[in-house]
C-alpha cells in the first residue's frame, strides 16, 4: 500500500516535470515571436508626406525637370522659407525615392495636369521619429534637428505626415536608404536557390537511397558509404560553402553570387538529409507487398517503381521538404560563395547576382543604421512565413498521398 502511494506520487511528479519542460519551451518560443513581431510589424508601414501639386494641363511633361519641379512644388507650401539652409532642411525630410514617385506621377498624369495633395515617401530619419523609434528631446529627435523639426511640426499640424502601407518592403531589393530597402531581391534569390537545390538533390537523393536500400549488395564498401552519408548530415554547413567555393566557383568557373551556385551548394548540403529520410521511408514499406509483386513475376525494378517508391513517397517528400526548409534558412554556405553582396536589383535569372533571405537578414542586422532594425525583424517574419508554408506543404502532401492508398 505504502509502495503504491510512492509509485503514484513519483508518476505525478514525473508528469509535472514534463509539463513544466513543455511550458518553458513554449514560453521561449512566444517571447521570441513576440519580440520579432512587435519590432517588425512597424516595417510594413512607412511615413509619407503630403504635398500639394499643381501642374497645369497645358504644360508639356517632357520639358519638366522633375527634380527642380518637385522642389518648387514643396517649397511653394512654405512661402516664408528663404535661406538655402532652411530649404535644404525642408527638402531633406523627403526620401530620394520621392523624386522617382513624382516622376511616376507625372508620367501617369498623361499631360492632363495635376491638382491636389499627393503623398511622397519620407526620409528614414523622419520615419523613425513618426513611428516613435527615436524619442523627442525638446526640439530634437535623433537626426531631426531643431531646424528640420519646425517643418515637421508644421506639416503635422496640417496632418500632412501619415503612416501608410510600405510599398517598398516587398517590391524592391536592397538599398542604401533604409526607407527604400526591400526584400524582393532576397526572396527571389532564395526561391531560385531552393528550386535549384530541389531539382538537383531530390532525384539524386532518392536514386541513391533506392540503390543503397534495394539494389546494392551488402559488403564492407556499402557499409563505409552508409556511415559516410550519415556523418555528412552532421557536417557544419559552412564546410559545404567551402566545397561550393572550391568546386563550383574555382573549378567550374560559375558566376559568383549567383543563386545557381547557391542552389547547387545547398543541394549538396541537403543531399544527405534526403538520402537518410528516403532510406528510412523505403525501409518501412512492408516487404510482403514487394514479395507479392515479385511472386507475380514482376522484375525487381518493376516492383520498385510500382510499389516501393509510391508507398515510400510520403516519407520521402516529408524528408525532402524538411531538408529544403533547412536550406532556405541557411546562411553560412551562401556567405562563402558570395551571395552576401549588396545587390540593388531583383535577379531576373538564376545567373544574376543576388542575395538570399537569411543573408539579407544578416546584412541588415549588421547595419549601423537604426532604421534597418525593424526591417530585419520584418524580413525574419517573411522568412518564418515561408518556413511555415513549406511545413504546411509537407503535411498536405503527406496526407494527400497517404489517403490515395
Amino acid at each position: 500500500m505504502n509502495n503504491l502511494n510512492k509509485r503514484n506520487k513519483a508518476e505525478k511528479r514525473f508528469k509535472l516535470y514534463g509539463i513544466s519542460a513543455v511550458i518553458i519551451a513554449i514560453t521561449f518560443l512566444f517571447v521570441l515571436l513576440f519580440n520579432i513581431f512587435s519590432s517588425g510589424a512597424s516595417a510594413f508601414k512607412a511615413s509619407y508626406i503630403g504635398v500639394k501639386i499643381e501642374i497645369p494641363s497645358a504644360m508639356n511633361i517632357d520639358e519638366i525637370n522633375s527634380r527642380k519641379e518637385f522642389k518648387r512644388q514643396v517649397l511653394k507650401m512654405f512661402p516664408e522659407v528663404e535661406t538655402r539652409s532652411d530649404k535644404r532642411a525642408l527638402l531633406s525630410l523627403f526620401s530620394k525615392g520621392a523624386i522617382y514617385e513624382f516622376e511616376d506621377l507625372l508620367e501617369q498624369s498623361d499631360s492632363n495636369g495635376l491638382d491636389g495633395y499627393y503623398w511622397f515617401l519620407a526620409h528614414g530619419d523622419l520615419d523613425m521619429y513618426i513611428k516613435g523609434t527615436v524619442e523627442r528631446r525638446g526640439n530634437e529627435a535623433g537626426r531631426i534637428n531643431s531646424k528640420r523639426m519646425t517643418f515637421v511640426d508644421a506639416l503635422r499640424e496640417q496632418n500632412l505626415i501619415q503612416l501608410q502601407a510600405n510599398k517598398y518592403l516587398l517590391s524592391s531589393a536592397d538599398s542604401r536608404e533604409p526607407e527604400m530597402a526591400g526584400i524582393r531581391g532576397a526572396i527571389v534569390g532564395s526561391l531560385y536557390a531552393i528550386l535549384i537545390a530541389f531539382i538537383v538533390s531530390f532525384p539524386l537523393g532518392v536514386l541513391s537511397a533506392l540503390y543503397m536500400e534495394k539494389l546494392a549488395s551488402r559488403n564492407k564498401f556499402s557499409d563505409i558509404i552508409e556511415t559516410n552519408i550519415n556523418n555528412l548530415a552532421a557536417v557544419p554547413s559552412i564546410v559545404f560553402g567551402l566545397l561550393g567555393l572550391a568546386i563550383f566557383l574555382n573549378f567550374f568557373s560559375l558566376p559568383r553570387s549567383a543563386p545557381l551556385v547557391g542552389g547547387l551548394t545547398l543541394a549538396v548540403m541537403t543531399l544527405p538529409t534526403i538520402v537518410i529520410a528516403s532510406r528510412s521511408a523505403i525501409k518501412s514499406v512492408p516487404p510482403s507487398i514487394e514479395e507479392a509483386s515479385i511472386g507475380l513475376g514482376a522484375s525487381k525494378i518493376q516492383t520498385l517503381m510500382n510499389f516501393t517508391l509510391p508507398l515510400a513517397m510520403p516519407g520521402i517528400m516529408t524528408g525532402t521538404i524538411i531538408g529544403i526548409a533547412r536550406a532556405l534558412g541557411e546562411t553560412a554556405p551562401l556567405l562563402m560563395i558570395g551571395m552576401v553582396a549588396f545587390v540593388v536589383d531583383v535577379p531576373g535569372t538564376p545567373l544574376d547576382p543576388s542575395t538570399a533571405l537569411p543573408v539579407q537578414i544578416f546584412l541588415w542586422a549588421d547595419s549601423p543604421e537604426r532604421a534597418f532594425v525593424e526591417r530585419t525583424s520584418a524580413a525574419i517574419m517573411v522568412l518564418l512565413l515561408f518556413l511555415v508554408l513549406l511545413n504546411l506543404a509537407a503535411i498536405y502532401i503527406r496526407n494527400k498521398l497517404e489517403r490515395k492508398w
Partner: protein
Amino acid sequence: MSEKLKISIKNLNVFYAEKQALFDINLNIMEREVTSLIGPSGCGKSTLLKCLNRMNDLIDICTMDGQVMIDGANINTPDQDPVLLRSKVGMVFQKPNPFPKSIYDNVAYGPRLHGMAQSKDELDSMVIKSLTRAGLYDEVKNRLFEAGTGLSGGQQQRLCIARALAVNPEIILMDEPCSALDPIATAKIEELIEELKRKYTIVIVTHSMQQAARVSDRTAYMHMGELIESGFTKNIFSNPQHQKTQDYITGRIG
C-alpha cells in the same frame, strides 16, 4: 489423380550463408494434386516451397544446389528467367498481402505486367474469371473499385489467390495460407483448394495436421531440414513408417 509427374526435386541442398537449411531433398510432386509439406517450425518447409519459384533469390546470402525439375526442365540454373518462372508458378503467402490498390487493380496487376490482355474488355473478363475461380466474385462484384485492403482477412486471402490465378499459372504454392484466418474463412479457403486442384498443381505448407489431412492427396514430413517421409496422405497419417513422423502426428514433437 493423374499420376503425372509435375515437379521433381533431386538432391537439393540450400544454405543460408554457412548454415545449411535443407539437406539432400528428393521429392516428386504430381500434377493436379495437392501436396502438403508438414513439420515443426524451422524445419525448412517454407524454404523448400520458395525453391520452387526461386523466391529465395531475393535473399542475398541464400545459395542452392541440386535440381528442381518442372515439366522435365531444371529451373535451378542461371539460364532460367525467374520472372518467367514465377508467372508459371504462382504463390500465396502466409499473411494476406493485397496491394494497396482497388480489388480490380489487384487482380489486373499480373495480366498488365505480362501484357496478357489486348483490350480493356479482355482484361475485365480475366479479372472476373479469376475472382470467380477464387470464389470471391459474388461478394465483391459491386465494389470492384474499392480498396482491396478494406476486405476481411479471409476475403483478402482469396483476393490474393485470385491475383495469383490471373496470370494463368500451372502450379500454385501456398505458404500457410490459413494461419492468419479464423475457422470459417479457413473452411472457405480449403473448399477453394479442393476446387482448384482440378486445374492446378498445388503445394501447400501448413502447420495444421488436420488441414493437411483434409485437403491434401500426398504429404511430405520434414524435420530439421531433412525430408523424413512422403507418400499418400492417408498412409502417412494412419500408418507412418518413421518414428519421427509418428511422434509429430501424435503430437509428441512440434
